[in-house]
């Protein structure tokens, strides 16, 4: 009996020390999140709003880290759908709500790489849509993303988000398309078939297009579509690049 008690204790210790499952695994394992991601792919605002309302109800029942993180993730997806509909009001609302949820998640679990990633990413969404957004939130957005990477050097989403910072920052202030490309390639290498990799290919296409590397841009946008042919964002970028336009 003593042996089995210690075995159970040992197992408990082992399980407690086990790393949190990757966010991507949580999404795959949770049908409602998988549906919400499909809604993101098709820019389905209505379906995402339903998912967000459900998430808010979960928080009312239990203001836990997991529930706040879930809400932040859904608002992040809503941002993509808002872009797809060119709806800046919705984008501002979703990003503000998402930042709020991500901050609460991070407060409950300060060592959560995903909480810091979502905080940084959603602040980035908010920036263009509030007066002086970059002035107010730019430094913090970058800091949150750097912290996300520090907490989990395998967080591909954080690499993708940080890469876009490098892409958009003027060179004289530390921006670098080369660095952006490097970080996106790193994200892809971390998990080549993941949603983060898909997003990385979409962004790498844009980086290459901006550098005049059209063939590379076409290749990356094709890979993004191969990984997720349903994703409207990938379709949009692919069309832009095919037409020779700067996305």
């Amino acid at each position, binding site marked *: 009996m003593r042996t089995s008690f210690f075995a159970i204790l040992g197992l408990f210790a082992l399980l407690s020390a086990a790393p949190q499952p990757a966010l991507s695994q949580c999404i795959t394992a949770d049908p409602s999140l998988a549906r919400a991601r499909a809604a*993101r792919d098709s820019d389905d605002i209505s379906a995402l709003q339903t998912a967000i309302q459900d998430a808010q109800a979960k928080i009312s029942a239990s203001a836990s880290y997991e529930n706040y993180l879930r809400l932040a*993730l859904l608002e*992040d*997806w809503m*941002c*993509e759908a808002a*872009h*797809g509909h*060119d709806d*800046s*009001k919705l*984008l*501002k609302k979703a*990003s503000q709500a998402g930042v709020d949820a991500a901050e609460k998640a991070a407060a409950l679990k300060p060592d959560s790489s995903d909480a810091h990633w979502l905080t940084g*990413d*959603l*602040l*980035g*969404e908010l*920036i*263009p*849509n*509030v*007066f*002086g*957004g*970059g*002035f*107010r*939130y*730019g*430094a*913090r*957005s*970058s*800091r949150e993303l750097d912290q996300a990477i520090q907490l989990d050097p395998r967080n591909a*989403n954080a690499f*993708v*988000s940080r*890469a*876009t*910072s490098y*892409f*958009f*920052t*003027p060179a*004289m*202030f*530390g*921006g670098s398309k080369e660095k952006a490309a490097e970080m996106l390639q790193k994200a892809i290498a971390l998990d080549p078939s993941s*949603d*983060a990799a898909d*997003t990385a290919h*979409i*962004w790498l296409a844009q980086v290459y297009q901006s550098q005049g590397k059209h063939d590379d841009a076409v290749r990356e946008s094709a890979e993004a579509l191969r990984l997720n042919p349903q994703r409207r*964002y990938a379709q*949009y970028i692919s069309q832009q690049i095919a037409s020779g336009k700067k*996305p």
Partner: protein
Amino acid sequence: MRPSSPRNLMNSTRTGRTAVFFCAIAGCFAAVVIGSALAARQPSVFAAQSQSASVPAQQSQSATSPNSAVRFDMLVRDDFFAGLFHGDKARFARALKFTEDALAKDPKNGDAWVWFGSAHLQLSGEAYSAGDSAKGKELWDRGLAEMDKGVALNPDDVGVHIGRGAPLLGIASSGYDPNDAESRALVTKAVADYEFALAKQAPVFKTLGRHARGELLFGLVSGYSMLGNDAKAREYLRRIVTELPKSPYATEADSLLAKNPLGIVQHQCIGCHVD
């Protein structure tokens, strides 16, 4: 998960470094345009007070000679910019203290109020960056009020108008919501400040340096584009092409005139040397 950035909106305003960049633009505007505008001004009435105020060391010689006419901005600018561009908190604090002391001696110094307000806007940005939105908002509101006070005290002074307009336009360039009433009001105010400066300097405008003229006109282009006034933005773009021929300003203006719609124009300061 899609990383955050607009697909087709303002696309260069996401990071702290970018924010610094745009504040540098604001500083450039202030430094160059104020400098040019003030060249034709009467000496500041601050000269008399400057002898007894504590002044930044590098300015003490000019500031303390008995009948010197020292512009207020010359007394604080270097220290403020050292703080803004190089993170020199000690110099920034020195400039802030100097301005505060100057206002205690002369509460009607519009120049000083505008610099004081601008400094508080900078501090507000630092508070927001640190995650303290409450403090950020408090300093933001304070800074705006102080700049307004400066303009109200010296409504005919080009320098105070630019001193308010330039930071507002610079900050707006880092993020702007055209559907937000406060955003529109602030950009409208900045555009009015620049229009005032342009009108006031009309007799000498052609004699000003290319940089000063280019940045002032592009400030108007940017401001009007944010307000959705495509016609006025294009008017100033055409003016740039005409008045600054064969310049990088004209090249940039030409390429913008070819765009339809114009969209929001984000101009990056040309030729500024930030030490």
